[in-house]
């Protein structure tokens, strides 16, 4: 820690209201003892200066020169130590496998949680010497379990981003109310000014969804104190919750039990990628398909090529205006098979035989309906996400609710009681707010973690309305698009610096522990609200009473929440248990069917399907709404379907591209209403011919250095909260922008790479479609007497969500190289997800394959290295010795899987401070000119073995989890010891008929086996002549 920071800290300490910096001190402070008060006078709590001064009865003198020097030396040492170890002092309890105190070189795992406005996750955060270095899912958490979304994992990097604000700011404006200058302010000044303004009344708060009971309580108290209004809006908000309210009288995002469903129909709901709690969905979806004899069927009506569509057994391409037709069509098909009212019968009659109009085979459509009927109470119909935000969005949702109700799914697979009631964001609210602002009713607007200047389309007039607000206070950690238009930026902590709690499903509460003391002079939003209430002396006692937000949270739990969930335990032990487990409460597994109160018979379609081309905006898995656009890991993570990095683009179908003479990368100018946007073309197989699909979240202008100039802001094409079905025109501009993909070719060229079989094939023979090769050897091979590590990957449960890629990047310190170098084929991912298209190109379906070093027994790389830098371990690992590598790259040439990555430049040197703090100290940061690759997380293997040794027990299966395995929401990746007969991997290797080696005939004998992907579509794969291609 630098001296200036110390200065700031000591200044803060001397302030009367001592909040932010003491936030990290501890128990004496709670009691506010006189000793503590005294201790505040000195900078170092333990400084002997104080003692000596006391002895001599003087405050200032009494330090001899030599003592001074000694102390100075000691304090330098102490400050540097303090700089390294940023450990919160308030009691956070590590996960139960930890030593009593932080031991250098031993990592601690703390429970925490993550919320991105839509999806909530229970997390385990790994801390090394006080630095959070890795985020993964909390396996015990009832929702996501293992899985941690790529965004949640990458949010770690946000903590160390150089672009993060380090103190509060004030913006000065010119007459036109545009930003003239940004100046730093002190918290005192900001607080005084803000409180002055707040006291004038007319206070409004704008935020995204809030899932934390404590934050809600703080906001509630603040609202009570200042008579404020709270508006909740999310750029990716859809109408699911509102439709639930109108259909069932309950504003909730229901819990969908994809694991209990046999038949899932998704109408543009990308529940595996971007809609709802995706990790939970992935987990449940995979659970419903793990048993191949009774696996669920997923049918997707897809207007973009979503991850859900890519995982569908049967995928229909539609355009957004057809979504409502599809649902009504399905209802009309099942009329007669389930009981419906006559009014509904009449209402859906026009939709009879709609399949032809939709360009879908009528037979296939009827089969979908028949399957729904067959699986009544065991099916799910979902629609949602901004892809469904057409004019008919509400009607669509109501129709979907009705369909679920008549199929008897409600209460069984659609469980409102296990849903999330906190996703209340809606466009209606922000429209209300804008109206109020225009009317001059808002004197002070507090914006918390919401970025309307970027993600709200201009036609709603937020920018103009904001000019009528005399004081705008913004709480976030970036000088983003909205921040520059706010008078004050009350810089918020990073989530990993803040206490909190969560309720992601009714009755299941999660804890949000901070992992690090605030790195800079920042203050949590909640504490800001508390401070302002305290200074204005308004609001309930509890908002004024506590000096830290932690105290507030704890108090809330002690006085209110614990009563609900503690089960009569004494609070201290309850609290400790809560922190340790990361959550309390139970998830409702079933509910009772609710009465459908909506009116289907009056649902009318207002969206016309006449437009030549319809716009479909969609969020991507990695970038989402663009909040985390400045994180390199996310930008360099290939899009889950297109595999394109560092850009957004306009997707058009192959036919459309041909008809308009468009080639990949040709820039086209899209016109939607009066808005224009120029984007490069991406030709997407399987897209509807009348759809132009564009990802939102790109084109951030104020996100930071990484996101600058990456893509275009597609939110500008939205109209009044509508994202899909808008008529769009495009014309070629003649320019070209190279789109960069990490995958060279989309077809398997008939090779045995991802073996796919249908459910019918599997019924005949479990190892259907696998062509096995006879291989033989003239030498006996390696002997593995101890462990022999292996990995099994079930392609049937892999959804391609890419969580493993980010986990690997974080665990193994792999570099981000940027668009230019990915274009040259220099990306560094140790694990990648290959996506191949199969079948008819117009209507292509997709398969995924995670690929990492296969740790071959007959490794071709090992024999060709002239300096023995890659060697075979006694446990079957193929080890790369970075120090020995001179970089001939022969190993890469000889690797049939091409999984090796070379350090073409000195990437490590480019890591900007303090990003280096995110590096995992257990893994070497590779120098320039050496080859690197997946190690099977050898550091985790060592750690697991050491742990077993210390505990004097044999290693158990599952003790060691590689980073990719640990992050996988679907348990697709299983790692273990092949020499342990009972390990899960050994069973797959020995007994699983679906298991096969990639490029088996090449006889590298990989230690990784894949299992056949099954498409549950009731078809039979035609036999190919002459074995595999």
């Amino acid at each position, binding site marked *: 820690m630098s001296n200036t920071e110390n200065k700031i800290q000591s200044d803060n300490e001397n302030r009367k209201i001592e909040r932010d910096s003491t936030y990290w001190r501890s128990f004496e402070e709670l009691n506010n003892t006189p000793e503590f008060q005294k201790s505040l006078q000195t900078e170092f709590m333990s400084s002997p200066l104080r003692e000596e001064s006391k002895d001599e009865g003087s405050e200032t003198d009494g330090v001899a020169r030599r003592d001074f020097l000694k102390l100075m030396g000691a304090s330098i040492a102490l400050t540097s130590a303090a700089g390294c170890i940023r450990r919160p002092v308030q009691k956070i309890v590590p996960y139960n496998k930890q030593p009593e105190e932080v031991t250098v070189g031993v990592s601690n795992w703390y429970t925490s949680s993550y919320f991105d406005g839509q999806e909530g996750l229970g997390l385990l955060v790994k801390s090394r010497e006080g630095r959070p270095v890795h985020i993964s899912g909390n396996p015990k958490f009832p929702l996501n379990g293992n899985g941690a979304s790529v965004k949640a994992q990458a949010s770690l990097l946000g903590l160390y981003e150089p672009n993060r604000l380090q103190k509060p700011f004030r913006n000065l404006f010119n007459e036109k109310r545009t930003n003239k200058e940004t100046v730093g302010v002190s918290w005192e000044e900001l607080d005084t000014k803000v409180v002055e303004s707040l006291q004038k009344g007319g206070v409004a708060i704008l935020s995204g969804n809030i899932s934390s009971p404590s934050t809600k309580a703080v906001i509630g108290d603040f609202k009570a104190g200042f008579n404020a209004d709270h508006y909740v809006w999310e750029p990716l908000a859809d109408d699911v919750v509102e439709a639930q309210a109108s259909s069932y009288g309950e504003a909730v995002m229901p819990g969908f039990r994809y694991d209990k469903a046999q038949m899932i129909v998704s109408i543009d709901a990308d529940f595996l990628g971007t809609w709802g709690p995706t990790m939970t969905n992935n987990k449940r979806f995979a659970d419903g398909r793990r048993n191949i004899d009774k696996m669920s069927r997923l049918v997707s009506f897809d207007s973009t090529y979503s991850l859900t569509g890519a995982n569908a057994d049967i995928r229909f391409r539609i355009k957004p205006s057809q979504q409502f037709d599809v649902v009504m069509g399905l209802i009309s098909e099942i009329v007669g098979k389930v009981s419906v009212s006559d009014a509904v019968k009449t209402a859906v009659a026009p939709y009879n035989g709609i399949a032809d109009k939709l360009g879908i085979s009528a037979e296939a459509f009827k089969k979908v309906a028949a399957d729904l009927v067959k699986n009544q109470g065991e099916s799910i119909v979902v629609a949602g996400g901004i892809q469904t935000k057409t004019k008919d969005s509400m009607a669509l949702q109501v129709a979907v609710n009705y369909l679920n109700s008549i199929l008897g799914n409600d209460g069984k697979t659609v469980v409102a009681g296990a849903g999330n009631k906190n996703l209340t964001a809606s466009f209606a609210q922000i429209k209300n707010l804008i109206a109020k602002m225009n009317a001059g009713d808002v004197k002070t607007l507090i914006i918390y973690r919401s970025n309307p200047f970027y993600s709200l389309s201009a036609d709603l007039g937020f920018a103009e309305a904001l000019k009528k607000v005399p004081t705008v206070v913004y709480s976030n950690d970036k000088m983003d698009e909205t921040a520059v238009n706010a008078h004050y930026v009350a810089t918020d902590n990073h989530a990993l610096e803040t206490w909190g709690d969560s309720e992601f499903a009714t009755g299941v509460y999660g804890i949000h522990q901070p992992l690090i003391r605030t790195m800079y002079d920042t203050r949590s939003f909640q504490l800001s609200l508390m401070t302002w209430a305290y200074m204005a002396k308004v609001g309930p006692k509890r908002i004024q009473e506590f000096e830290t937000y932690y105290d507030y949270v704890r108090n809330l739990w002690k006085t209110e929440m614990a009563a609900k969930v503690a089960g009569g335990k004494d609070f201290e032990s309850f609290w400790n248990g809560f922190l340790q487990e990361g959550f309390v409460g139970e998830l409702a597994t079933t509910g009772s069917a609710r009465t459908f109160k909506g009116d289907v018979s009056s649902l009318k379609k207002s969206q016309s399907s006449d437009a030549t081309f319809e716009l479909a905006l969609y969020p991507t898995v990695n970038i989402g709404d663009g909040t985390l656009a400045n994180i390199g890991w996310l930008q360099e993570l290939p899009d889950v379907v297109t595999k394109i990095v560092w850009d957004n683009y306009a997707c058009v179908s192959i036919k459309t591209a041909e008809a308009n003479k468009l080639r990949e990368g040709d820039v086209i100018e899209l016109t939607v209403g009066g808005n224009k946007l120029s984007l490069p073309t991406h030709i997407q197989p399987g897209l509807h011919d009348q759809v132009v699909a564009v990802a939102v979240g790109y084109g951030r202008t104020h996100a930071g250095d990484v996101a600058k100039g990456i893509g275009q802001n597609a939110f500008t094409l939205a109209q009044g909260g509508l994202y899909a079905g808008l008529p769009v025109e495009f014309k070629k501009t003649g320019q070209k922008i190279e789109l960069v993909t990490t995958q060279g070719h989309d077809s398997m060229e008939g090779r045995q790479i991802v073996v796919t079989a249908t459910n019918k094939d599997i019924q005949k023979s479990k190892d259907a479609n696998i062509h096995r090769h006879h291989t033989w050897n003239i030498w006996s091979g390696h002997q593995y007497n101890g462990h022999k590590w292996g990995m099994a990957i079930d392609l049937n449960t892999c959804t391609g969500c890419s969580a493993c890629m980010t986990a690997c990047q974080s665990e193994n310190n792999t570099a981000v190289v940027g668009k230019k170098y990915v274009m040259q*084929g220099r990306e560094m991912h140790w694990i990648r997800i290959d996506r191949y298209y199969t079948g008819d190109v117009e209507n292509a379906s997709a398969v995924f394959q995670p*690929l990492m070093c296969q740790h071959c027994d007959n490794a071709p790389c090992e024999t060709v290295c*002239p300096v023995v830098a890659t060697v075979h371990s006694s446990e079957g690992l193929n080890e790369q010795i970075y120090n020995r590598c001179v970089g001939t790259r022969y190993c890469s*040439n*000889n690797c*049939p*899987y*091409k999984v090796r990555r070379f350090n073409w430049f000195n990437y490590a040197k480019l890591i900007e401070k303090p990003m280096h703090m995110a590096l995992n100290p257990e893994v070497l940061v590779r120098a*320039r000119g050496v080859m690197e690759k997946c190690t099977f997380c050898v550091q985790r293997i060592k750690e697991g073995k050491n742990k077993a040794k210390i505990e004097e027990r044999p290693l158990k299966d599952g003790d060691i989890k590689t980073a990719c395995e640990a992050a996988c929401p679907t348990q697709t990746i299983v790692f273990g010891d092949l020499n342990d007969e009972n390990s899960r991997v050994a069973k797959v290797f020995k007994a699983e008929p679906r298991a096969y080696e990639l490029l088996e005939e090449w006889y590298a004998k990989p230690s990784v086996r894949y299992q056949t992907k099954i498409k549950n579509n009731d078809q039979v794969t035609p036999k190919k002549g002459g074995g595999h291609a």
Partner: protein
Amino acid sequence: MLKRNPLVLGNKTLKDVSDDICAPIERIPSKEWMGLFLGAKGLFIFYILTIAMVISTGIGLLGVNHPVAWGTMIITFVFWVGIGHAGTLISAILFLFRQKWRTSVARSAEAMTVFAVATAGIFPLIHTGRPWLDFWLFPYPNQRGPLWVNFRSPLLWDVFAVSTYATVSSVFWIVGMIPDLATVRDRAKNAIRKKIYGALSFGWRGTAKQWSHFEMIYLVLAGLSTPLVLSVHTIVSFDFAVSQLPGWHTTIFPPYFVAGAIFSGFAMVITLMTLVRIGFPEFKNYITIDHMEVMNKIIMMTGLMVGYAYGAEFLIAWYSGNDYERYVFMNRAMGPYAWSYWIMVSCNVLVPQLFWFKKIRRSIPIMFVVSIFVNIGMWFERFVITVTSLHRDFLPSNWGQYAWSIYDTAILVGSFGMFFTIFLLYLRVLPAISIAEVKPVLNVGKEDEHHGKGH
């Protein structure tokens, strides 16, 4: 009896031979030479700077990437090593076969070999990721265990093969020059010159005993060099053939590489000799059209051999039934790098067919152009082998393209700067034709002399 064409034209006396051959060493360099030399030297300095950039910044400046991890440097390395082969073939194998016509071109061809191998030898050193650790490729005693090199790796065999080749061919070349250097020393009028050439000629006095030893050692060295002609490029081909990459893993590679090497080497000799004839007109009497024609015949023959290899590769790829290999070859001829494949085929197989015609075989301008084509074609042959095999191998997800950059061009062009700088210097400071070997063949093909003297 079949009349032999004279090997030396212009009724030269023994003195004429010495005068003619020593002339370029003894006179002030011409403007043309100076121009060429400055140009080559400028390019050489540019090359050195480029290498410095690459070493200081990273090999990533070049187009090598994933999946094409070998590129310009390896391609150009094989190209230059191949060039070297003609020299040894001419000087050693033809010597053993008593081909008298070799005498006038042997010296320069061998100089070309040494310089080409020197040029080539730089590439394996600078193409690594950490060139400062290249010494780890040599099995030297060390304190790391000791940690030895991997004797199974073809790259290591390469290290031995190329360094052996460089050593033996340099020794052969230098030893062969000793009598001539003594001639230059004896003719020197300047004391410093006398000293330098005196030192270089190792005290040669031309006694019968010395001649006897000289001829014996020359014969022995020729014997030693001969297998190297075959082995070096065989081992270079192992870099590819021993790997398991379709398009590389081919048993035909060793003979195919050797034939290709001789092919490209002779083409380079033709290129250089036509230029030497222009630059030093007095050499026209020694390096005659007959010499050139003989070499053109060899070019045509070896061109047919590589052409046969190209065909055989396709046949075997089809016959093997191996899909990956079939794909690689189809992709060579029809994929995104088809242009390079067809440049290779045209330059190496089609263009040399012109040499079926005697007129063309004996036309200096045409043979010059053809030799340039062959050089281009042979560079592309290595490009095709290296890049097209790597860029689309087993898993289509890996497929990619070579990311050619300005540095690739700089390295390729710069290497010519190095080669020509050394070669031009050589022409000025060393006798470019073997005086001692030409003198005994002065009589060949002359009717007034009795036959059989040379046999």
